[in-house]
Every structure is written in C-alpha cells, then in structure tokens.
C-alpha cells in the first residue's frame, strides 16, 4: 500500500511557490464564529487558501457553505457580531488582522477591492455613476473631483463601456445590469489593486452578458496581473475562468487543486456530486444525480466528516474527520477515500 502523503492544510505546491514568491492573498487557518442563544456557529473553520499574482482562484460551494463570509472577512467587512477566533489574513505578506480599522480602510479600495454580487443594489441610485466610479481617487488620493471624473471616464472606457464620457453623467437606473457590473469592475480597478474579490459577480446577468463580464475579468488578469478570488456556485463559470479551485462545504475547505484536477478528476464525493448535479449542454444526461439530505446546521455539525450524512460512499472511518489529504503534489481532498 502506498504511503499517505500528508500535506499541511491548504498548502499544495504550485509553480509560483517553487519560485519562492509571496502570495497576494494568504489566508492561514482562519476560523470565524457567531455566538447567539442557540450556541456557537463556526461558519469558517480552519480555512487556508492562497491567491497568487495573476491567478484566478475559484472558491465554490452551495449557499451556506461560508464562501461569502470568507470574502467579507478578508475585506474587513464581516458583520460586527462575527469574531475571528484564530488564524491570519495576509495581503502581500502583511497581516490584515494586526491592522486597525482605519488602516484597513486605506488598504481596502487601494490594494484590494471587491465586485459585489448584486450590482444594482451596490450602487447609490441617486448619485451619478461617474462620481461613484471616481470616488476612490478623491477618498484615497485626495484628488479633485474634476480629475476623478476624468479618471472615471478612462476606467469606464477600459472596461468597454460605450460612450464613457456621456455615461459618467448618467444615473445607475439608466444602465443595464451588465453595464452596471462593468462600472463596478471599473470602480474596483480604479486604484490598481493587487487583489480583486468577485462575489458571484454574474449571478442575475443574462448569459451572453455574463460571458462578456467574465471575459473582461480574464482580460484584466492578463493585462494587470491582478490576483482574483472568484466566488461562485457555478461550476461552468469556474471551468471557464479559474486556474485554481477551492471547494467549501459547511465552513471547511473539502478539496483544492488546479481547475483541471478538480473538474476532471475530483476526489471528494461532494465535488463529484456537484459535477453530476450540474445540467450540461455538452451532453444530454439521462438522469441528474442529486445529493440527498441538506447541508448541516452550523449549530449541529456532525462529529466526523461533515458530508458523511449525505455521502453515498461513507464507511466506518468517516466517523472521524480527515485532514486535507494529498492526492498528488498539488491536489488535496478532505476524504479518507483519497488516500
């Protein structure tokens, strides 16, 4: 029998690491929990992940898996009732947890920025789009509004918005969903951040528009070498845009690896089930394989593997939860079967 390769949490070897660099974003065994009358809900449990310069990293999982909470924690925007109980978040090597609120405020927007899920509700409806896109220049660089608007025109042109010098004077309701989302991308990119976090940026957009926005994000990565953390539940989007993938389930990373490894040879039964449940247009499935049961409540997490109750391949060993086990040098899965 082959010897199990135990790789430390979330530290699969990527080419970048061999080159001895520093990841743009590094989350090291982060745990976040909420406390209320029902007890303690640890919604992020020992999560580690890295995003390297010029890399698009997908964080996937169903609703309630903790992926959006991870993004908010990185940005320092987690609700005040959430407490980080352990772990660290580093942006290009410097710890965000050690920073004060006002320090984080200077980093957010300048060095890291976010493209939110529902662009229509993220914009101020009574403020002209140009003013919103230009605001980072005024806030972070103390530039004049005139200069800021000129910059906004430039940025909006860069994200392929038609007629940017006219569009800056319009209000969000005059924009279509795709145009608003491109304006949000322009705003996020305005100060040349090292890290861009996109939380389901194309949910609610039409497919042809979604394709345009995704291609834009891919181009931005190619041109500016921006590191991108891409949160989504759509495996198709992951296949089209991501280099590296982390799969999250009930607050845990359950599998991670390159997009090829995760989508063509998944090792965790949860990842496998997600793939089988996704309707495809490449081939017609005779039967979609659904996942029985539902995601466990954070207040009543099972003792062993968190997916065991819904897993078709569970066995005795699942009563204890495995670590992320090395499948290959760059691919790990939290499942005894991947040994």
């Amino acid at each position: 029998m082959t010897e199990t390769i135990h790789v430390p949490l979330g530290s699969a070897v990527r080419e970048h690491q061999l080159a001895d660099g520093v990841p743009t974003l590094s989350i090291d065994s982060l745990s976040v929990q909420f406390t209320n009358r029902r007890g303690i809900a640890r919604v992020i449990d020992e999560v580690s992940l890295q995003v390297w310069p010029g890399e698009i990293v997908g964080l996937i999982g169903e609703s309630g898996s903790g992926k959006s909470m991870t993004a908010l924690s990185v940005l320092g925007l987690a609700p005040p009732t959430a407490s980080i109980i352990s772990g660290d978040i580093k942006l290009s090597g410097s710890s965000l947890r050690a920073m004060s609120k006002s320090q984080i405020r200077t980093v957010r927007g300048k060095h890291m920025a976010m493209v939110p899920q529902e662009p229509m509700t993220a914009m101020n409806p009574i403020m002209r789009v140009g003013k919103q896109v230009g605001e980072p220049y005024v806030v972070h660089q103390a530039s004049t509004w005139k200069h800021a608007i000129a910059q906004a025109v430039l940025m909006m042109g860069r994200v392929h918005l038609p007629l940017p010098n006219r569009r800056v004077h319009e209000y969000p309701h005059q924009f279509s969903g795709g145009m608003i989302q491109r304006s949000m991308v322009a705003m996020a990119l305005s100060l040349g951040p090292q890290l861009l976090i996109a939380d389901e940026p194309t949910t609610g957009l039409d497919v042809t528009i979604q394709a345009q926005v995704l291609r834009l994000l891919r181009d931005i990565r190619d041109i500016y070498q921006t590191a991108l953390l891409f949160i989504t539940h759509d495996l198709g989007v992951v296949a089209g845009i991501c280099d590296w993938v982390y799969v999250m389930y009930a607050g845990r990373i359950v599998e991670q690896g390159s997009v090829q490894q995760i989508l063509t040879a998944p090792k965790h039964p949860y990842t496998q089930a997600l793939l089988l449940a996704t309707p495809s247009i490449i081939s017609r499935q005779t039967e979609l394989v659904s996942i029985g049961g539902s995601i466990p409540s954070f207040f009543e997490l099972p003792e062993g593997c968190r997916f065991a109750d819904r897993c078709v391949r569970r066995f005795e060993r699942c009563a204890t939860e495995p670590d992320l086990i090395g499948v290959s040098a760059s691919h790990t899965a939290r499942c005894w079967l991947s040994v």
Partner: protein
Amino acid sequence: MSEILLQVRDVSKDFVLGGLPWRRGTLAAVEHVNFEIRAGRTLGIVGESGSGKSTLCRLVLGLIAPSSGEIWFNGQLLSALSTKEMRGVRRQMQAVFQNASASFNPRQTVRDVLLTPLEVHDVGTRDSRFDMIEQSLEHVGLDLEILGRAPHSLSGGQRQRVAIARAIILRPSLVIADEPTSALDVSVQAKILNLLKQIQREMGLAYLFVSHNLGVIRYVCDDVAVMYLGRIVETGPTEQVFASPQHPYTQALVEAIPHTDPRKPQFNLPILGELPNIYQKPTGCYFHGRCPYALSACTEEQPSLYNFWGHRSAACLWHDKRFISRAPKWVSDFEGT
C-alpha cells in the same frame, strides 16, 4: 403522435405604456408567436431578460389577453370562454413559478396552500380532499408532517416541492413552469428537475418550461423555442437545435452557457454589445446589431421563420433562397421554405 394540447397561433401582446395621453407608446412584448404542445410533451422556451418569456406564460395561463392571435387549449379558444368556463380550463392548466415563497400566502400553512385549489374548484369531499393532499405530497416526496408548517419555515427546495404539489393536485394536463429552479442551488435543482420528469412519467402531463439555462432546458425538454425581443427566432427538437443551431443568436447562447470542461475554451463568443432597448427595437432583424454574420438586408428586412427538415425553423435571412448559396458554413442545407 399524441393529440395537440395547446396551440398558440400568431399571438402578439402590446402593452400600453403610461404617461400623458399624447406621449403614450406601446411595447410589443410578444410578437407573432406560434407553437404547439402535444399531450405529455415538454416545450422549453429560452431567452434572455426582456425576451417575452414570462409574458408568454401569462398569455397561455389566460391571466392577460393577447392583443392579436389565438390560443387554443384542448380544442377551446381561450378568448371565447366565459369566466366560468375559463375556470374549468384553469383546472387543466397549472403553474409553478421561480419565486415559490412569493406565490404563497404567508399566513397560510402548507395544508391551506394545498387545500385552496380544491376549494376553488370544488373538488372532492372533506375526506377525499385529505387523500388528494396526501397523494400529491407523496408525489413530490414530502412528509405529511410538513402540513402544519408555514411556507417561510421551509427550505427553498421544500417550498418549490410544495408549489409543485399544489400545481399537480388537480391533475392538470399542462403545467407552466416559469424558471422553477433558477433560485436553487445545483444539488437542489437536480432534485427538482428529476422530480418534474418523474411526475411527467407518472401523470402524463405536458410542460411549458421557461428557463434561461440551456443546460436545464436540454435536460428536461423535448422541443425548444428560442426567443429574442419578443419573437421566436428558432424552434426544433432540443437535441438538434443544440447540435446545429441555425440562428446566430442560438449559437451565441450555446457558446455563452458555461460548461464544466476546463479543457474547452469558454466565453470567446463573437456576440457584440448589449441587448437593445426593448422600447426602441431595431429595424429589420432585431439581432442584426449584435450579429457577426449580418447582411445589409438584415437592417431592413424582418425575417420570417424559415422551415426546414419538416420540424425545424429559424428566423434568419441566411436561410432565404436569395442568400443560401453564399451562406456561412453553419447554415445547413435544406429544401425550400
């Protein structure tokens, strides 16, 4: 072939837009739409927002009247029916919507939700009604203990199951499903789609299935109609339409749908620009401004649906006799129009 259950003939719907009387305009939400559904079959309608999919559902349900054209259901012309007769038709025709929670009365329990259609249509006695509720819950895989609960206390998947149970409790012959799974996670979506197919096998009902997700359409539908700005631009058996789309818009849609194979390139489609403003539709073919294959004639001439292979059609001028000889490679050969 089974009998024709629903026939939509040249149906259009214009909405009069508000405002001062001399400034009022009209919005053509659905234009000259034709299709039919046979008993026990599934027709998928796919299109982006503003393409008129939901208006079409409301027209078929008789919730709004068409501006022109005819809708025939079970041999009856809907617009000729009295309110009372329409109620009888509705018993045969039920709906499931995207946002299940919004389609429930928040003060009703699941029992009330399922009882309402039976009361409205005066079906059964007290005892037999309970049997029917039990049966329909069994069909959708829910426990009886759910009956006392309020819809908002259920999960998204359970709520959609209750909505389906409500739709099938009267044993309809047609169910109109308007984006029934687009608010659900993939694993839950898979369950609901499998459930819809299973119910169809058991009860032999037909679906008019609206979705913007081509993967879902491919999984559930026998035939598909692609809509763009209120018009049907392509129809045919689902497998054929996906294998060789004959309208550039369908091609773009098929290209744009994310697939889970990382080895195949994605999002490189040639479709340009934004969806046009539905209040000011372009002249000629509505798609010409975004079409990589547009002819100069496309800016002036509204293409009709060209039929080919007996059961397929596409509204693209490249299928016209005048242009077919120099058509791009993707235009399949066919005989006449």
